[in-house]
């Protein structure tokens, strides 16, 4: 409600400012003599920006400091002896009760008289401060409007100013990407640090047993060894790459070097469809089709393969990654200059000799980079593993057995019946951090390699 009022106010201010700047700029244009620098639209936008900023700043300041001020106000409303009788937890509870009273929510139990009066006082305090903030914002906006308007002259460079503002806005947008990273790191690190107050980091990073204890047995947190999860992750990734790399690479080679145009036109988008399929679909496919199939196939040849196992998840994940590998490889192969290929053909090399002896070695760094990117994707994949890997966080080397990965453990620990204040769920963030760091390193390394490769042939 309040925010609606504020938004409305800002809109009005904006319209007003634009209109006033515009008409002023327009007026300049009619007066002849000096050449007018900017068009009326720019003058309008200029004034609008000027008017908006102080108003926004005031509202922003209130958003920042308002809570603290309100808090102090509430404390001031509680009788001193009552405060002294309360510990920190009690005080917070009382404040929460007063806030609840003021906002119209009931509170449980009897309402103490001072709570009631504090609640009433808070309600009027909130109302008044709201009015003050709105008024201050409006006044600041209008003052700024007038100031900006007074600066408009024929030679005033409104366009440059507006463009600078646009520039800043664009800059801010590209800051979102930075903020995202900062957000990821900050949120992961703070929660992970909490986790490490329970569990020794060494036990986490080098522990070989993953057995977070049950929610019921407080004090005995269980074991949080990362290694079984890491091993599971690596095993599935390895299997996935064993599937995806040969198929993807050969498909890319065939499509880019051999396939007639029509086949390429059909096959390429069809393979790319694989890239568009949601991972949950792959997961379901793995669970209900691939897993049972592998189990039966294993039975036939006397192997005991679990329906949900590293193998199932790995194969399906490999399928998922095929288009990723193939389109990256395709790109890279196409970047190898034609002259190199011609050189080999000119010597009488066959097509496959050219590809194997010249093209691939030349493209190798780029392809390795592409594979690393694919690896980082496999490492971070979640849903296929959730559904098809069997979630068994035990350190063993058998791909026919279920495994658990980092990603799947994040999901399990954060959505299970775990104690939210204990390490059982906090470990999710430590795992997330680990995952983030792993993929970060892989990516940086891969990007580095790929970039070096591109430079070589630019």
């Amino acid at each position: 409600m309040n925010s609606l009022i504020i938004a409305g106010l800002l809109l009005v201010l904006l319209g007003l400012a634009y209109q006033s700047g515009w008409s002023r700029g327009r007026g300049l244009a009619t007066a002849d003599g000096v050449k007018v620098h900017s068009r009326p639209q720019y003058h309008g936008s200029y004034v609008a920006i000027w008017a908006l900023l102080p108003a926004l700043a005031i509202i922003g300041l209130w958003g920042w400091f308002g809570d603290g001020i309100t808090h102090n106000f509430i404390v001031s409303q509680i009788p001193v002896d009552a405060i002294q009788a309360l510990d920190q937890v009690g005080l917070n509870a009382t404040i929460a009760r007063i806030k609840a009273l003021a906002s119209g929510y009931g509170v449980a139990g009897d309402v103490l008289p001072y709570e009631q009066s504090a609640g009433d006082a808070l309600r009027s305090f909130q109302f008044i401060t709201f009015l003050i903030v709105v008024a201050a914002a409006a006044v600041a906006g209008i003052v700024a409007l007038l100031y900006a308007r007074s600066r408009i002259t024929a030679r005033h460079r409104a366009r440059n100013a507006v463009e600078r503002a646009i520039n800043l806005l664009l800059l801010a947008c590209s800051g979102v990407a930075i903020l995202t990273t900062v957000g990821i790191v900050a949120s992961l690190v703070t929660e992970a640090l909490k986790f490490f107050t329970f569990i020794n980091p060494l036990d986490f990073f080098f522990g070989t047993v993953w057995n977070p204890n049950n929610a019921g047995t407080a004090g005995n947190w269980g074991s949080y060894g990362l290694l079984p999860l890491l091993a599971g992750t690596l095993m599935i990734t390895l299997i996935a790459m064993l599937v995806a790399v040969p198929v993807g690479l050969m498909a890319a080679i065939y499509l880019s070097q051999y396939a007639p145009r029509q086949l390429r036109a059909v096959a390429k988008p069809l393979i790319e469809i694989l890239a568009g399929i949601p991972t949950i679909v792959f997961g379901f496919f793995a669970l209900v089709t691939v897993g049972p199939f592998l189990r039966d196939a294993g039975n036939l040849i006397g192997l005991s393969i679990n329906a949900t196992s590293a193998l199932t998840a790995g194969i399906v994940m490999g399928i998922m990654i095929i288009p990723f590998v193939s389109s990256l490889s395709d790109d890279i192969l196409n970047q190898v200059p034609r002259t190199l290929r011609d050189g080999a053909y000119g010597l009488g090399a066959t097509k496959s000799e050219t590809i194997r002896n010249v093209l691939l070695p030349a493209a190798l760094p780029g392809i390795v980079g592409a594979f690393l990117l694919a690896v980082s994707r496999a490492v971070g994949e979640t849903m296929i593993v959730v559904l098809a890997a069997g979630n068994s966080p035990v350190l063993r080397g058998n791909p026919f057995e279920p495994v658990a990965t980092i990603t799947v453990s994040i999901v399990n620990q954060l959505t299970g019946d775990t104690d939210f204040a204990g390490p059982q769920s906090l470990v999710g963030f430590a795992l997330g951090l680990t995952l983030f760091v792993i993929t970060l390193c892989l990516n940086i390394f891969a990007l580095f390699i790929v970039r070096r490769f591109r430079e070589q042939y630019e």
Partner: protein
Amino acid sequence: QSRDTIQIAGSSTVLPFASIVAEEFGAAFPEFKTPVVGSGGTGGGLKQFCEGVGDNTIDIANASRAIKDSEREACTAAGVTDIREIQFGYDGIVFASAASGPDFALTPLQVYKAIAAKVPVDGALVDNPYKKWSDIDPSLPDQDISLAIPGTNHGTREVFQLEVIDAGAEEAGLPEGLTEEEHTAALTTFRQDVVVEISGDYTETLARLTSNPNTVGVFGLSFYDQNKDTLKVATVNGVVPSNESVAAGEYPVSRPLFFYVKGQHIGTIPGIEEYVQFFLSEAAAGGSLEAAGLIPQPEEKTAEVLAAFEAGAQ
């Protein structure tokens, strides 16, 4: 103007029951909207529940275990001071194996012997020697031991530990003179070669069973009920698990189910009281919940819970 939909989150065991009640509640009370039931586990639900009071916090947390003191403290610190506990029934936990396999009649002792990494033999703990069920007890099938039990992120695991393993260990008689740590270890260290811990849901356990038909899995009673065509249930202490046997207290492995209501939201968010009453009422919910596999609690217990709820903050 406040929110008009009741918001619920928490245990995935309670989720089906709560969802059914929510749906029926929405249908039966034209003036209220259908509550939203989120999952996220008992811990996740309580976490949201304890975030504070107000529109953007949930009203009810489903739990397959009782709230813990640490969680209560967190709640209080955030201003959630009026937490009303509602126990509404039981969840039966059963052992089931592939329908095509042999029958199992288990006791906690046998399960303990099958599962523990070390078992007491002649007053000393030795490495678990049993390979087949029939090694433990000749009455059991001549079949390799293989067990799929819930992972530690599940509430079910707690009951399993308490009612099966701890009980079995007691019967087996752990040697005297163990330190507390050794004692805990003896109870919680399982054989990794035959035991699989399932961190996913029961579908996962079912997949384990279908791929290795020798496996005995731990399921919720209601899950078993809906998949009788592929699963065969084992008796425990000779009792066949069923709604009746659990409700009567004959079947040993069960746990109470709860939800927690934020008292401070009553009267602000419309319909909370009605929802609770409806949940516990015989006519509307009882039938469908039972059909969905909830094991009802004695009527006196329900009356007691309802009375406590209506009486207000504890």
